[in-house]
């Protein structure tokens, strides 16, 4: 009785998941390979993929997306890791303030952030005003260039990066670090020999999560980025809604799935492993 009640209770969300996640993914893959012809029949055709990979504009957009993802990933790593290390090994009011600030973007919706960043980094925005006030020349504004989305995406993804890395560092015993220090290891040595080897997994999970979020981001690139070339998110939206071309939009979506496949698999595998370990 217990088993059937359980299945009955989870049936509704599972059906919803199958209908609105699993089925669309399969339908997108199949629908872009077996394409409906004008006469109503379906035929095997890779034409939309051939078009994507031979169209200069599509390839530029893909390239911009990869560039943005890599740059954001690296920036998140070089900002998030030092903050996480600092938070792990100190306590008091100042670290609490630092943590509060690092987590704060989690409470700011990206649409509000977009609005705020236009006035801050846009032309004649606050950054320009402040530079001017201290007598420095204006910087070229990153607004409507590929750097605009980079700034927004790093801002937006910093909290989860810091939280996930801090959680990963939490698994490293303080005693093992103190032991290494007692025998005279330098901080760099401690980092390379003790911390890094044990961080491998959580670094990859953090990176996977960030990549999945950044690769197909929409709002920030749409608002802060250049109109052309554009990242895959705005590109898919425009192809689907403005150009009324679902076939090519779905092809672009399947291509994004393909590029994120490795990170997706890694992400799921590590969640599964963590749950095994947690039990």
């Amino acid at each position, binding site marked *: 009785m*217990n088993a059937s*009640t359980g299945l009955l209770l*989870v049936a509704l969300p599972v059906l919803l998941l199958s209908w609105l996640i699993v089925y669309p993914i399969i339908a997108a893959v199949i629908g872009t390979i077996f394409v409906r012809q004008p006469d109503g029949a379906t035929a095997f055709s890779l034409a939309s993929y051939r078009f994507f990979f031979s169209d200069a504009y599509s390839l530029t957009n893909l390239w911009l997306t990869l560039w943005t993802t890599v740059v954001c990933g690296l920036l998140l790593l070089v900002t998030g890791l030092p903050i996480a290390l600092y938070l792990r090994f100190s306590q008091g009011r100042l*670290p609490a303030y630092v943590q509060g*600030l690092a987590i704060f973007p989690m409470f700011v919706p990206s649409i509000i952030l977009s609005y705020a960043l236009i006035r801050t980094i846009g032309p004649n925005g606050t950054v320009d005003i402040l530079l*001017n006030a201290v007598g420095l020349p204006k910087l070229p504004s990153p607004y409507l260039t590929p750097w605009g989305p980079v700034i927004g995406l790093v801002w937006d993804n910093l909290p989860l990066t810091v939280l996930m890395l801090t959680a990963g560092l939490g698994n490293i015993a303080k005693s093992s670090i103190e032991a290494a220090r007692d025998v005279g290891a330098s901080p760099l040595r401690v980092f390379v020999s003790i911390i890094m080897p044990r961080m491998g997994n959580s670094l990859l999970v953090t990176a996977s999560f960030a990549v999945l979020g950044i690769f197909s981001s929409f709002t920030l690139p749409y608002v802060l980025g250049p109109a052309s070339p554009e990242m895959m998110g705005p590109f898919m939206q425009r192809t689907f809604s403005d150009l009324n071309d679902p076939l090519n939009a779905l092809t672009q979506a399947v291509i994004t799935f393909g590029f994120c496949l490795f990170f997706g698999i890694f992400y799921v595998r590590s969640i599964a492993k963590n749950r095994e370990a947690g039990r």
Partner: protein
Amino acid sequence: MSLGAARIDWTGILFAALLTLFIALPLIVVGTWAFTEVWRYPSVIPQQFGLRFWSQTLSRSDVWESLFLSLRLTATVTLLSAVICLPAAYAFARLTFPGKNILFLSFLASHAFPKFGLLVAIAGIFLQLGLISTFWGVVLIQLVGTLMLMIWIPVAAFQNVDRRMEEAAQDAGATPLRVFWSITLPQAAPTIVAALLLTFVGTFYETEGAWLIGAPEIRTMPVLMITFINNQIVVQYGAVLSVMLWVPSFIALMFARRVVGTGAFARGFGA
């Protein structure tokens, strides 16, 4: 650290200063713009403060239409999500049934796909069903986004309920339903309320699904703000809306965070 509290924490001061600049500056800027009437370059401080743009923003009919539409959508999605997910969360936490682990993991696995690509794939289905640019189309696409959160936070809540109290009530002759109402639910309630709040706020600001599925008929608050940005309408409109909507959502989120705990967020994403 072991070297004594007297040492000045330069690393901390550096992080605090840089983060204050990076994180707080854009928010201060948008907050200032909301209360500004005239602010011309290159003055550091606005030439004239005032509330004129509050009354101008609040007298726009498109703002009120979007606000009510957003609230109606968000309430519908949150309610449906609770009705669909909470029983499932109870089952995942307390019952044993075949395929339990793989089903639970499949909810987390929905995060393993690039989100906007997934939305486009769903939009492809909705196009055939005629759900594009309809209220229920947007409800469905936003509902999918709430599933994971609405299941895994309540699962943790149900798992943390004190089993001995339930057993004691059962021994005293209470029916299973009675035990659930009087013991299990009250203990799990704060966390469930927090999950509801997170879902509500998250759905209110959900932009991408609403933009892709809802356009052009369904204009939610975030979609309206994007149009304000695109059409380069008066800066203050967006700033006023940001401040007006963000303050209540911030209070709700702070409450939710206190209940759920920051570390739990990170764990839920697989850290």
